[in-house]
């Protein structure tokens, strides 16, 4: 073990970690939007929407993320859409995450008592307000622990996008260790950085939970 190589590589690793973080965050945001839309559509959009949502969820939950990523990256150019690796990566992360998030929200919505929406219905609320003001805020509260879990899983899954050449933490570690022949030190450093990021995310989740519980 030679720790000086870690120090030498650290600036590059940290720069790559920043890429990991923002690609993951964009993936999570996309996943949240898709997840909520799919969940609401399946619950209130009729049978066709429910079935389409079901197909979406079973595909993106059932096919390995690496395969999804490669499919998006190699298939879209075939139909004339040229996607940069970064865009393909964020899309793949978001689509996969959306499938899980929609199921997290479905479970959380089932945990909101029926009387909650009934009270709003009896007061004459429009359907949209019942979703945005009553159901989703409560579903969100219930699902914070599961969403933090999903956030951490997704951040780790982002290491897969190294295969399409995005210079995130894993890819950069590969590149560095291929040139200095010190894979153990470099991957160890990368692992510690992942751990630190996820530790911060878990802490953030606890704070959000505590904050919401005060309400």
């Amino acid at each position, binding site marked *: 073990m030679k720790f000086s190589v870690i120090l030498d590589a650290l600036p590059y690793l940290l720069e790559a970690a920043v890429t990991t973080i923002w690609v993951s965050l964009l993936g999570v945001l996309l996943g949240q939007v898709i997840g909520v839309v799919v969940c609401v559509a399946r619950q209130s959009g009729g049978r066709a929407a429910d079935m389409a949502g079901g197909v979406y969820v079973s595909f993106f939950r059932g096919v390995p993320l690496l395969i999804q990523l490669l499919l998006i990256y190699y298939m879209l150019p075939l139909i004339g859409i040229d996607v940069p690796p970064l865009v393909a990566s964020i899309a793949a992360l978001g689509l996969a995450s959306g499938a899980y998030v929609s199921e997290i929200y479905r479970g959380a919505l089932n945990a909101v008592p029926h*009387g909650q929406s009934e009270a709003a219905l*009896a*007061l*004459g*609320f*429009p*359907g949209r307000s019942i979703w945005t003001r*009553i159901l989703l805020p409560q579903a969100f509260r219930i699902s914070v622990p599961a969403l933090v879990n999903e956030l951490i899983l997704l951040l780790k899954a982002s290491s897969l996008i190294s295969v399409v050449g995005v210079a995130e933490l894993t890819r950069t570690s590969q590149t560095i260790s291929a040139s200095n022949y010190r894979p153990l030190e470099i991957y160890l450093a990368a692992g510690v950085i992942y751990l630190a990021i996820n530790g911060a995310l878990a802490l953030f989740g606890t704070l959000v939970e505590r904050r919401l519980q005060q309400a």
Partner: protein
Amino acid sequence: MTAVSQTAAPTRSPTADDVVPMVSIRGVGKSFGTNEVLRDIDLTVNKSEVVCLIGPSGSGKSTLLRCINFLEVYDRGEIRIEGTLVGYTEDTPRRRLSNRDLRSLRRNVGMVFQQFNLWPHMTALENVAEALVQVRGMDKASAAAHAGRMLDRVGLAAKADAYPARLSGGQQQRVAIARVIAMEPHLMLFDEPTSALDPELVGEVLQVMRDLAADGMTMVVVTHEMGFAANVADKVAFLDRGRIAAFGTPREVFHESAEPRVQQFLQTYHERNSF
């Protein structure tokens, strides 16, 4: 008064407003599969009347109440609120009302639930103000001001910023009542409003309901509080197995009814509440 109204509106006949009942239920029936939960119900509630629905569990009281604002769909007969058919179009064969039409009908009908159903992520004040913003389109500031006055009316001005979890059951139910009266409904439905409360908290909720009745609010109340029914109700309907088995003033139902099921029900009630 008489002279003024005659000169001011000489052509106004004493029909429309005075004669059309607040709620008119005619031949209403409902089934869950083969189970008939409501059979051939007739009931009229006039303006400013308090009508209590009593009877054993499973007799259909709550189902009937929930049909009045169409939270529960009735299959047969008709329910009218101030002359407007509830839940269906006037065509034959009738079709279900659109959500939009259902909403405008529900605006005039408030409902208070057994489990309060306050929204736990909003303060007492926000619970009351929310419908004013979402349904009546008031701006946030005037909705909050109006909501504050309503909380004051149920004696909870001091709890405006408390979340439901920090309130007692009785306080929660009073907030739920404030949430409804803020919308200035023409009619209020109460679905066992005190059944989920500890005995010592029942009184404060019944007092608010008494005040509302004294102010002339039209109320239909499903209740197990026979004292409230006897003292506050103008009419009492006793339901048994989906039918109205007895109907009349509290005196007629409680003391003069020859209906054996009423007698049996009241006897069980007295046995349970004496010690």
